[in-house]
């Protein structure tokens, strides 16, 4: 158990270092407009927009080849931001590219997993750990919920589950029109 924790910890640290390095070393000196668009896209990398990732879609928008309403994970709010940036009118999400869904995370049933590595090859953000013929695990923190690993699995052991609400991620709701009055009697008004 401890070995596993340490190993995972070391891996996480190593990945962190590599990523940090990659951020500097491989800085993509692309089209600044595409860069700005990409910063708005949710980076789910799911391909629902019809491009193989957020950056390709961003570049396509910048070239004027793609519309701004093709990214379901970004939702209406994403479309509005893109419209803002490009000085266009917002429009509803295009239905053919899919629906807005609640945030999900992939879970591998490790008792069924045969260690074929097909899911690893499909994952756009390297969120799956495992080697050939060993059971695989998803690093929930890194999973974007893109669902790309689900179809390739030959034994159907990957399931998408909604993110469990927890206190750390909880937010206050927007106040109702008629909320509870103050608890302390004597308030003005």
């Amino acid at each position: 158990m401890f070995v596993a924790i340490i190993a995972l910890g070391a891996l996480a640290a190593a990945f962190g270092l590599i990523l940090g390095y990659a951020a500097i070393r491989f800085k993509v000196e692309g089209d600044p407009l595409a860069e700005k668009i990409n910063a708005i896209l949710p980076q789910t990398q799911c391909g629902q927009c019809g491009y193989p990732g957020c950056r390709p879609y961003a570049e396509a928008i910048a070239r004027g080849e793609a519309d701004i309403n093709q990214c379901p994970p970004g939702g209406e709010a994403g479309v509005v931001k893109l419209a803002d940036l490009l000085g266009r009118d917002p429009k509803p999400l295009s239905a053919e590219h899919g629906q807005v869904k609640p945030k999900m995370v992939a879970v591998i049933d490790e008792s069924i997993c045969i260690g074929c590595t097909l899911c690893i090859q499909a994952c756009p953000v390297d969120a799956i750990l495992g080697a050939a013929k060993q059971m695989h695990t998803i690093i929930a923190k890194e999973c974007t919920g893109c669902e790309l690993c689900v179809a390739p699995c030959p034994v159907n052991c990957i399931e998408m589950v909604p993110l469990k609400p927890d206190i750390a991620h909880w937010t206050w709701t927007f106040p109702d029109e008629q909320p509870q009055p103050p608890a302390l009697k004597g308030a003005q008004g």
Partner: protein
Amino acid sequence: MIRRLWKFNGGVHLPAHKEESASHPVRRAPLPKRLILPLHQHIGESAEAVVKAGDRVLKGQMIAHAKGFVSAPVHAPSSGVVVETGDLPVPHPSGLSAPCIVIETDGADQWTQLQTHGDYTRLDPSALRNIIREAGIVGLGGAGFPSFIKLNPGPGKAVNTLILNGVECEPYITCDDMLMRERAPDIIAGLRIIRHALRARECIVAIEDNKPGAYAAMCAAAAGTDIHVVQVPTIYPAGGEKQLIKVLTGMEVPGNGLPIHIGVVCHNVGTAAAVYRAVEYGEPLISRYMTITGGNIAQPRNLEVLIGTPVKDLLDECGWNPATLDRLLMGGPMMGFALPGDDVPVIKTTNCILAMTAADSQPQRPVMPCIRCGACADACPVNLLPQQLYWHAHAKDLDKVQEYNLFDCIECGCCSYVCPSNIPLVHYYRYAKTEIWAKEREKQKAEAARLRYEFRLQRIEREKTERAAKHTQKKEELTAAPVDPSGTKKAAIVAAMERAQAKREEVKSEE
């Protein structure tokens, strides 16, 4: 000695509702059958359980250890058996569940072996801090920041003034008042320990002038020392850290800054008493004084309660009427929050359980449009512009609302209290704050995903070129004749290569 006092802007005078619960001595709440101990009772990282279901634990035994620097361990408040570890409802405005350890008490209330530390004046500050950290002590006045961190001024920072906060300005709550009346010597002893750790130049105990009993007791306990016990005018929220510092020193803590930046450290009186128990007797933080009050409670009282006691046990103890219960709050009526149910436990930071009937609280009045009267700005003790904050939070303009210093808002509720239009202003600010945090988390996650995605593309690209390179290299090796070894190579390799060559030749000739 008469000290000069200053005033902070704003604030409101509130009905006190304190006498109900403060007119009886504190007694110990009965030992509950079940103790529910959330692993996250403080600001910072959750503690990590070190016991599992089936384990027998003794009173005072550590059952979860601190994980990370800003964290605090949790101890068993009584002896018994761990019957469950898992997610259970915890006292939090979300009403969500979180990891807890459940202990079924055995009634023996048997202590574990406690480690005492002898004369604290011989301990250096870092040893003292460690004792306080291991005792699981967090700020008992409000947010529950791990106390040992506030005992470390940091390199090069001198502490001029150490303030012990016994102001307790929120209506209904009287647990600090009762603690000062009943255990003033413990508090003063704790204050001296804290002072020793901080090497503070001067010490002030601040008490609102509506608590003459507490003031007298603290004065008596501090007699003969150079500790100043000071009465401050009763106005809400004089107990707010930055407000109290202003009142006592005339200094303003900068917007994003901490009191230590101006040489001041504040601790709550309950924290000081807990520090004393930890250093003198080796006792971890497993109980505290708590006010159980409100119109729904037959005998409003202060009780000494074991951390982890279910709220319902305390309501039963003080007599309540479920039929007329309108609201159940943890904390006071201004800054407290509604509990999702009575099955949640009390935690280290719980100072009050407020059970209200409909007649106690403000009758429902329609929310009206803001009339820009400015009453909220006059009442704000932080000198914010609550009306502007409201406009921008209402418009969900999360950038603008931050420009108006949303994060300096202490959620004291003065603005909502005075608003003639009954606008739930603080709710808007809480909404905006948590929304901004959520957006920030989302952004960080997207950025991490982008980097991982790009890194993966690079990796695939690199693997492709490497594979191609290997391929061509192999091809070349197959076609090129072996070069004569230049003498530096070992004979074995040469021989091996010759053998391989011979074999290749053989294969070729066979074809």
